[in-house]
């Protein structure tokens, strides 16, 4: 029996789909049998992040409606044999699926896969209800901005109200240079405010744009900083102790001690 994990955030554009694609790929690279599920019916994008948009025949709504078998809708990844995508419909809306149907679907997937990673749509409405319905764990993605943190807090409250207590935070797109100058919320600020366990920090990385352009998740690029961060996150999900990334370009030595003294 596998584990289902929903990737959610409340606010849109913080990197849920990127996170889903990368964690899914990274877990598969670690040898796990993984399926990533797009729960954003009507606005599907996970297929693009994996470069599988041209291979879609059936989708999640077809499975739920009984048009096809679950296996027929699963698309095998280009690179990894143990990674699959369950895309959703682009021409239906979120009411095409009920939370009960979603729960049953995820249960079925858990029988086949080690990890079922569900990409949740933005918002707190029907789509969110569907995405979290079958989840055992939740990953809350946020960025160091007031609006994203506020929405993350709201989502955490919603998850807890549903009894989904196993939730962890990913802080995405952190700019170390700015946090160092006090111009951006830092990791301590955010964990302090949100009172949630930290799963990982992903540095702001322009290369992510290139990864998405090509439909190749950043974890497949050994040189990518964000990719490395996602690989660390995947290992932590498996229960490994992996230290958090050091602040980049952290000054050290005698001079920095002086600087720090003056900054106070």
């Amino acid at each position, binding site marked *: 029996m596998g584990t289902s994990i929903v990737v959610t955030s409340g606010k849109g554009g913080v990197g849920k789909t990127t996170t889903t694609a990368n964690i899914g790929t990274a877990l598969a690279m670690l040898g796990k049998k993984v399926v990533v599920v797009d729960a954003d019916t009507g606005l599907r994008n996970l297929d693009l992040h994996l470069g599988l948009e041209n291979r879609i025949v059936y989708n999640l709504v077809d499975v739920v409606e009984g048009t096809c078998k679950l296996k027929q809708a699963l698309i095998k990844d280009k690179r990894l044999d143990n990674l699959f995508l369950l895309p959703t419909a682009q021409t239906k809306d979120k009411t095409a699926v009920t939370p009960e149907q979603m729960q049953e679907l995820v249960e079925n997937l858990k029988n086949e896969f080690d990890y079922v990673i569900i990409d949740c749509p933005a918002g707190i409405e029907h789509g969110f209800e569907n995405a979290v319905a079958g989840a055992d764990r939740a990953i809350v993605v946020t960025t160091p901005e007031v609006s994203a943190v506020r929405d993350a807090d709201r989502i955490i409250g919603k998850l807890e109200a549903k009894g989904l207590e196993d939730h962890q935070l990913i802080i995405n797109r952190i700019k170390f240079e700015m946090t160092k100058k006090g*111009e951006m919320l*830092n990791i301590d600020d955010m964990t302090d405010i949100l009172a949630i366990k930290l799963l990982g920090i992903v540095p702001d990385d322009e290369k992510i744009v290139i990864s998405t352009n090509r439909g190749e998740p950043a974890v497949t690029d050994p040189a990518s900083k964000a990719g490395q961060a996602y690989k660390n996150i995947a290992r932590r999900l498996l229960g490994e102790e992996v230290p958090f990334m050091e602040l980049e370009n952290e000054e050290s030595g005698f001079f920095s001690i002086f600087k720090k003294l003056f900054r106070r």
Partner: protein
Amino acid sequence: MDLFKLFSKEPPSKDVAKERLKLILIHDRANVSPTFLEMLKSDIIRVISDYAEIDERGLEIKLTKAGEEGMVTPALIANIPIRKMKDSAK
């Protein structure tokens, strides 16, 4: 650039963000509607008026935070200026 910051009184913008967030989250988490505090206020006035004469305009009720860092819970703080105690209270 850094030298200017050394002498300026303005706090770093991330501290401003943090403070703003802390306050807004207290309201979000408590799920308090604006009318709630007003209703509470008038009820408190009604109850206390039986025992004391209070300065209604000076009455202040606000939602704030209590508890240790990290384990913040919402708390109601009421400041109720008493003009004089009523005889019945003695």
